[in-house]
């Protein structure tokens, strides 16, 4: 038991130490951790999300171009060769980052790092690939995403909350025209030295750095200045969108500008009605007020210079959604009075969520990617320590200032009967 604990602690410290070293190789920031996983993954994280885009939809189109033909390999060649190695190539786009990921068996890193690097340095962005693969893919992806009322509500919430910058959707809206030249120009502006971080798991840092020197070295990346986004400011507002055949959806949210604080995570943990034990109701103040057939989930979306926090209420009937909405608003208003054991409970819940999120590959990416791009050291210990500093007065001050701002209120569904913000008491 004691031995097991000691080795767990050692492993945890090794994780923190490995990630704390961010080295520069070939103009990019490299961070890698090897915990002896059976597979490796390498991610090129580019500061080229939708908030940096020069033209609506160009970031999404660039994501669609991932792993298409480059000077080294054709589109088909990339796929077939990756299949022969048994790897998985994927691309993801958020409002801030474009992530190009390759997951593969140990020992195949030469090939996969080269695939990723050759896309960064020598993608062809041909017009026929845009017309034949990328544009239909982007349209289908957007349609699929917006078929979910939750995604739609959150997308609109970002627009209301931040307007420009973070408000820009990572999905292409219908009727957007993007040319291959637009994509190339955007790619040239974001694929620059200092704008890319390479994160590896299951691969030794020096091996990864050496491979990057080989494939990105000798001035392959331009040193031009990367596009800047205006600092985020929070606005808020209300909107209602008609939708049919999907759950009635209401999003009640608040935003902050500036670096997301630990208090916000604690507030989210406090209000989160997800029970810790299956088939129980949960002890959140929201839980008791949720009618059967209605669900509530907390949404906390931290960004580099802002955060959007809110509760997403979904249900079959508008009456149920309205009742749950009233419970949510009441719980939000009384959240600032949290103290004593209740506060401690929320803090440890938030702490656990933060710690367990950094365990998986995706969690590591999101928690360490942004700080690696900045070149700063970010360890889990420092993050967890910030939770310990929270006391009742700091928490109530943070909550009060959050709730003082204008709420972001989005309804998607039957707009005639869904409640307005003032009907819920906002």
């Amino acid at each position, binding site marked *: 038991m004691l031995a097991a604990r000691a080795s767990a602690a050692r492993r945890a410290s090794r994780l923190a130490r490995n990630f704390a070293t961010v080295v520069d190789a070939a103009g990019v920031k490299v961070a890698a951790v090897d915990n002896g996983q059976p597979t490796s993954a390498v991610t090129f994280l580019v500061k080229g999300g939708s908030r940096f885009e020069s033209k609506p939809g160009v970031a999404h189109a660039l994501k669609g171009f991932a792993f298409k033909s480059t000077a080294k390999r*054709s589109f*088909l*060649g990339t796929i*077939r060769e990756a299949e*022969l190695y048994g790897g998985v190539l994927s691309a993801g786009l958020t409002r801030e980052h474009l992530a190009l990921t390759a997951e593969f068996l140990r020992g195949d890193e030469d090939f996969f790092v080269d695939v990723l690097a050759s896309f960064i340095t020598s993608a062809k962005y041909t*017009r*026929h690939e845009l*017309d*034949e693969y990328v544009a239909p893919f982007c349209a289908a992806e957007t349609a699929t995403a917006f078929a979910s009322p939750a995604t739609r509500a959150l997308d609109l919430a970002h627009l209301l909350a931040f307007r420009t910058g973070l408000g820009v959707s990572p999905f292409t809206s219908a009727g957007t025209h993007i040319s291959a030249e637009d994509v190339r120009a955007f790619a040239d502006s974001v694929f620059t030295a200092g704008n890319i971080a390479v994160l590896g798991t299951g691969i030794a840092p020096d091996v990864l750095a050496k491979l990057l020197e080989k494939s990105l070295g000798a001035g392959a990346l331009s040193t031009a200045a990367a596009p800047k986004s205006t600092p985020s400011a929070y606005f808020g507002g209300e909107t209602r969108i008609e939708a049919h055949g999907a759950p009635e959806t209401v999003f009640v949210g608040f935003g902050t500008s500036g670096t997301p604080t630990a208090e916000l995570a604690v507030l989210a943990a406090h209000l989160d009605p997800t029970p810790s034990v299956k088939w129980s109701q949960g002890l959140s103040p929201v839980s008791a007020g949720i009618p059967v057939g209605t669900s509530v989930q907390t949404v906390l979306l931290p960004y580099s210079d802002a955060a959007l926090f809110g509760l997403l209420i979904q249900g079959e009937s508008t009456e149920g959604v309205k009742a749950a909405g009233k419970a949510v608003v009441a719980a939000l208003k009384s959240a600032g009075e949290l103290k004593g054991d209740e506060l401690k409970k929320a803090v440890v819940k938030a702490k656990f969520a933060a710690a367990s999120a950094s365990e998986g590959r995706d969690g590591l990416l999101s928690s360490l990617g942004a700080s690696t791009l900045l070149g700063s050291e970010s360890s889990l210990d420092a993050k967890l320590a910030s939770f310990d500093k929270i006391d009742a007065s700091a928490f109530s001050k943070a909550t009060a200032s959050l709730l003082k701002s204008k709420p972001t209120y989005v309804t998607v569904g039957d707009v005639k009967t869904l409640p307005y913000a003032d009907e819920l008491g906002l």
Partner: protein
Amino acid sequence: MVLAGPLGPSLAPTIRKSRTLYRWIKPVADWYADLAGYRKVGYKYDDLLLEERPDVQRALSRLTPREHYDRQYRLKRASHCSVLHDVLPKDKWTQASEDIRYLKPHVENVEKEELERRAWDNLVVSRK
């Protein structure tokens, strides 16, 4: 270039390699292209390419909207000439300088992709 490709067999690459041969053949080729008569109805050479095959159809879909429109216009104008049993007035004939192979690169690319796909489909993998 495969013999059964949409562009047909051609000796042109071989001839172009030898400077002497090129100097001898080029005037004859130019004379023949004028004699063929397609320029007199406003066609370019690539308008005559056999288009009833999937690879050329794919290549056609890769033309820019402008190129596509111009091609349709030339086809229509030439069919009209055919109905009238006449050629266009001389100022509307295609000049030798305008007679560029606008479709050939696309056909070649499609063909290359097709050959690559065949190569990957029939690949024998030997693992070390």
